[in-house]
């Protein structure tokens, strides 16, 4: 028992567990919109595109969240611009822009040595997180949660039917920018917890898992958020014993839950759909048999 409680004797572990839980929850909350809007690639792009901002911010001594945020938004604007002005498809545009930004960031960090470590940006370093960074993350998370809680219905309508949103006089542009901004800000916050490479997992997996489990958006939000918080807390805790990467632990845990759900989900899981298909074939045969009793069994089956 004492052994299981050892992580809680270390201040840095307690912080890491709490911060991971918070960030995991916020990411999961947004992941519902990300999966339904088809923005998974966008999330991936944003989380990579913030890296040059982080390095510039450190070089000139600004808060890293500010730099990251600005560079995320610049990347989103670039993507929007290229997509609307050229014939290149969206996935290619996203691919080009985010790798360019990421490369620029990696280059800057390696050319101008500073106190930031490339590894901690790419893979996260929640155990060594500074108190000032925790404050930033808490602020970002609180604002994001507040906006989502207050405006989730508008965001939902915007994701489901932007035309209707516009027809009843909602400002669709503002909603779109709000969602993108929240996404960028959350990516910044999650960067420290799991690193640029794994942020997208936190922004997609919980939403995708919850989507398999329910047909109601509000339930989907609860399931996703619960899963985000749970896996992040447990993942961070387990990383102490495994002596492994916190981000890795969290994401592996999320993926295992996703796989289990994929298999066992009551209606949209693989097994359930297989059974449902089999049942309806059986019903069809039964009906056919009652209608044409003269047809021999061999022909019917």
């Amino acid at each position: 028992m004492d052994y299981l409680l050892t992580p809680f004797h270390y201040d840095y572990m307690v912080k890491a567990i709490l911060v991971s839980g918070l960030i995991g929850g916020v990411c999961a909350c947004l992941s519902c919109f990300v999966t339904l809007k088809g923005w998974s690639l966008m999330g991936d792009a944003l989380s990579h595109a913030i890296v040059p901002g982080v390095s510039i911010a450190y070089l000139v001594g600004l808060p890293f969240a500010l730099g990251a945020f600005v560079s995320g938004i610049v990347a989103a604007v670039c993507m929007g611009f290229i997509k609307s002005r050229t014939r290149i498809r969206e996935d290619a545009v996203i691919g080009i822009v985010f790798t360019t930004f990421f490369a620029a960031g990696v280059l800057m960090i390696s050319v101008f040595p500073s106190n930031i470590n490339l590894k901690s940006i790419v893979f996260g370093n929640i155990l060594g997180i500074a108190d000032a960074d925790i404050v930033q993350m808490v602020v970002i998370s609180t604002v994001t949660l507040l906006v989502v809680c207050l405006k989730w219905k508008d965001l939902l309508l915007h994701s489901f039917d932007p035309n209707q949103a516009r027809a009843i006089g909602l400002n669709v542009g503002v909603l779109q920018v709000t969602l993108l901004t929240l996404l960028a800000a959350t990516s910044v916050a999650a960067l420290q917890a799991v690193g640029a490479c794994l942020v997208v997992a936190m922004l997609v997996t919980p939403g995708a898992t919850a989507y398999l489990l329910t047909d109601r958006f509000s339930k989907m939000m609860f399931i996703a958020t619960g899963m985000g918080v749970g896996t992040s807390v447990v993942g961070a805790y387990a990383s102490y014993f495994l002596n492994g990467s916190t981000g890795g632990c969290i994401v592996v845990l999320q993926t295992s839950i996703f796989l289990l759900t994929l298999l066992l989900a009551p209606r949209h899981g693989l097994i359930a759909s297989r059974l449902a298909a089999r049942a309806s074939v059986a019903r069809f045969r039964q009906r056919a048999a009652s209608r044409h009793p003269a047809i021999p069994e061999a022909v019917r089956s």
Partner: protein
Amino acid sequence: MTESHSQIDLTVSDVTVAYSNGHVALHDASFSLKPGTICALVGINGSGKSTLFKAIMGFVRPVRGSVRIAGQPVKTAHKKNWVAYVPQSEDVDWSFPVSVWDVVLMGRYGYMNFLRMPSAHDKQRATESLERVKMSEFKDRQIGELSGGQKKRVFLARALAQEGRIILLDEPFTGVDVKTEGTIIELLRELRDDGHIILVSTHNLGTVPEFCDQVVIINQTVLAWGATETTFTEENLSLAFGGALRHLRLDHTDVPGSNRNEILVLTDDEGALVVRPNGSKQAPVGKSSEKL
């Protein structure tokens, strides 16, 4: 509230829409509709039907000309919830995790507070709208679990709940069985009698004379508009569709030289329009089975 029940007219004057790639989708389109009409918007694919819809919805800004609703710009009209929209089935993500009830309530968002909490009145309106399209028993279904006709009725209920005075329907009869088509037409007639303006974009030429009193025929511009009897003619349709329309003249007469029994069938691959020599038009009896 009194305003939303007043009579509202729609005026489209000299609307020209060009997209950023330089394509002019619509030029100098003009027509106007009075309250209490069902108007069909007829034209081939790419004739600018959806662009015209977008202009009325305010999604595209005309480079020239204007759309006015009760004399107001579209933006004001939207703020007042005057314009309701029933999307084409293909434009809806049917696997989205929302129920029938959720969708109908979305029509009330414009009346709700900052948090979009439905009031008792909002709920009552939504319930009434669902009853009106006979979908109450499907209230809690996820929208993907409905048949084609039921799906259409849900979105119609949303438009009803919104209490829009102008209702735009994009291809309402695609993927809908004949019975539902009848229900929808019946409902549209009731709404017309309440003073609504209903603008229906359709490929189903056969049903147009059956329930539309006005027609707007377009191909990059408005070719003709006005009352169905005078505007929905073979000449105007040929003008709009050119060779794009199946055009069959059937004659099973025993009297050579007489066109007494000749019938003309015009079809855009959906409901066919049947014209008798005396000019009377008939709706087809069936739907897809009648495809020629």
